[in-house]
């Protein structure tokens, strides 16, 4: 590979890398949001139990 080709490859690689780093940051954020949402769902369930008595645990559709 000539040096010209190496530089071009490096430049495109940098752009690619930055976009992928973005991907990593977004996935970490999604993970955190998922965890927080689970906590909040738990809080909501507790609150509902306090107000209306224990709720039966039926199977719910996920999809």
């Amino acid at each position, binding site marked *: 590979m000539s040096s010209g080709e190496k530089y071009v490859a490096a*430049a495109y690689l940098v752009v690619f890398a*930055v976009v992928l780093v973005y991907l990593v940051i977004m996935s970490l954020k999604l993970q955190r949001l998922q965890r*927080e949402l689970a906590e*909040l769902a738990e*809080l*909501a369930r507790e609150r509902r139990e306090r107000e209306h008595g224990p709720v039966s645990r039926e199977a719910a559709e996920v999809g």
Partner: protein
Amino acid sequence: MSTWLRNNAGPATAVLAVTLICAAIALIFFWVPEDADQGFSQKIFYFHVPIAITAYACFGWGAFKAFMHLWKRPPEADLQSYVAIHLGVIFGALTLITGSIWAKASWGVWWTWSSNQLVLFLVLFLFYSAYFMLRFSVDAGPARSNVSAVYALFGVVLIPVSFLAIRLANDFIHPVVFTSAGPQMAGSMFFTFCVSLAALLALASALYRLELTSKRLDVTMKRLREALE
């Protein structure tokens, strides 16, 4: 049709970005002829300049949203301005890095003060990096959004003034003159350049929507938490 587009704008822009980027890369490496003067390393130009233009577009959009925030006060304008400037700084950093690689490939140095565009970008990069320092040192609230908006507007005003200053500065800083790629491009090169520009603008759009959605989620989660506790 337009309702579907509005509801699915995020994924739609991402699909557009993927398509255009693949098209651009295919054109750059398989179709467009090699430049006679600069050889293979000229191909960096097809990404470097569109990235610069995209960065300017992001700063411009950020300033527009800042202006709207100060004028009409739509609730999300400050957040949109922040995300746009954030993206602009990322693309700005990419401009400087790819520009530096191109300088090394073309002229053998990692940095040159004689390229007006690169120097202007450096100044803007410093300016908008300070935007984040400003934003992080003011507590969230109307004060922060107002101050950020005014600063963002200063940025776009700075662009032409800085450009003028840098042009004039070259007279006494005694530049080492490098010839750069001329504006006349063969038709095929210009077409490839345009596709590449569209691709990067689409990429910026897609990333903008993605980040905006995630920040909106943060706000909603906080409100939800406050409602439940």
